[in-house]
């Protein structure tokens, strides 16, 4: 049943995922096992397919919707069982930049991989990231920018996090952003695509 759930998730079959989660719960499977052996492996496989250019944005979006539907069914049971997320990530598009599809894709992939997401939206001031990270006990901050003129805002966030002594990693991504730029502004993480962002954040939170 869990394998079937993975396949339904990758195919973006929302109703099937919901139904399979219901069936798994009714069969007495613990919510954590349904999450960790059904939904999350499905999203992980989807991430690999996305990185390998075997699926593309439309397929990822419908899979993420199916994942969210499944999670919606599971969440009350996860909460009752005291299951905690893999980590908490504050995410947003930097000040002056209104582009959000890349940021939303990363947020969906992270959520689908078991992270709690605090999505600050677009055009986010540096201090807002910091406030949200503190308020939510975040393990990482993820920044998105599409424009060469707005990616310079990323340095302000990195500087603010460093100055705060919070000690959590900042991961950056977006069309003009490179690993070299991440190194230059001392961002601890860089991701060239949404699937890589999940891996990079996982690596940094675990470190």
């Amino acid at each position, binding site marked *: 049943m869990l394998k079937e759930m993975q396949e339904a998730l990758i195919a973006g079959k929302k109703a099937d995922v919901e139904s399979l989660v219901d069936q798994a719960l009714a069969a007495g499977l613990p919510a954590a096992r349904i999450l960790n052996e059904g939904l999350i492996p499905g999203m992980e496989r989807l991430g690999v397919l996305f990185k390998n250019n075997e699926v593309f944005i439309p397929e990822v979006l419908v899979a993420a919707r199916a994942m969210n539907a499944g999670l919606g069914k599971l969440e009350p049971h996860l909460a009752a069982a005291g299951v905690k997320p893999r980590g908490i990530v504050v995410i947003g598009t930097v000040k002056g930049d*209104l582009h959000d599809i890349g940021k939303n894709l990363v947020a969906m992939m992270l959520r689908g991989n078991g992270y709690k997401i605090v999505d600050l939206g677009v055009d986010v001031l540096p201090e807002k990231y910091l406030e949200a990270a503190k308020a939510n006990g975040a393990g990482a901050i993820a920044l998105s920018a599409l424009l060469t003129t707005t990616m310079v805002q990323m340095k302000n966030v990195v500087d603010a996090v460093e100055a705060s002594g919070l000690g959590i990693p900042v991961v950056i991504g977006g069309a003009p952003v490179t690993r070299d730029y991440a190194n230059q502004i001392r961002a601890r993480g860089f991701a*060239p*695509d949404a699937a890589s962002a999940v891996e990079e954040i996982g690596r940094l939170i675990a470190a």
Partner: protein
Amino acid sequence: MDMTSRELVIAALEFRSPERIPRQLWVLPWAERTWPAELSAIRKKYPDDIVQSPGFLTEPLMTSGDEYAPGVYVDEWGCRFESRQAGIIGEVKEPRIAAWSDLDGLRLPQERLSVDVRKVDDFCAASGAFVHARTVVRPFELLQFLRGPENLYVDLAERPDGLFRLIEKIHRFFLEELELWASTDVDALFFADDWGSQNSLLISPVLWRELFKPLYRDYAEVAHRHGKYIFMHSDGHIAAIYPDIIEIGVDALNSQLFCMDVKELGRRFAGQITFWGEVDRQRLLPYGSPADVGAAVKIAKEALFRNGGVIAQCEFGIGARPENVAAVFETWDGLA
């Protein structure tokens, strides 16, 4: 030098050894505002061989706001763009067609078809340059503006009837617009859509071939039936669909060469299509040196030029340094 600008471009498109690589500079309002004197000097020293005809519309487009100013701009399709930055276009935050029931109320911007053909022809006759039509044909982008990007991507996965009705509606309009411009004396028609992310297509090549390639094939057919060239632009990594673009007969393609493997593009496609620019505007033009830019142009020439098949185009856009933009044309001129 004997060739006119127009002759240079045609020689490049037909691989007939142009006397010089023809050139074209694209300028975003940001550059106009930030580097007015430097831009003027570049334009004077390296004039464009390709120009775009003015629209010569007899009826004004029903838009509001300034497309390139911070705030809200509503285009002729009713799409509402929000921007925080001067000099660049904004993002659509509220889709015009949020539900498919909104589709029937979608107003086509018929004013785009009020072109004064005689004025266009006069413009072409007076210009020694190769003249592009003032078309704004971009089905994929318009679909994103009308539906909102996320809605559209989900539509592409779920394929509701409304999506096909919408595509049909805008495609018919674009064909009408292209037919109109093809009846003028312009040299080429033009369409654009951004199909790539940094390292792949945004949608699967299979889906692209099914839904969008036929639209572009129609556009190319209109141009060629009227004896015009057809030019296309797409940002991003689009190597996967280069063969399709060549197959449907696109004469010149503006793509982000340096987002892909320039040498590999040349090995596979040089001599089959004209590479209409460009030079890396994400990294080299803003952050590189003139020497870096010159080296990139030399790589492009070596990889792509086959007795033509290259147009020295680049974009003076956000963050680009004027000395780097000048280096693009200086290097190409030196290589001719």
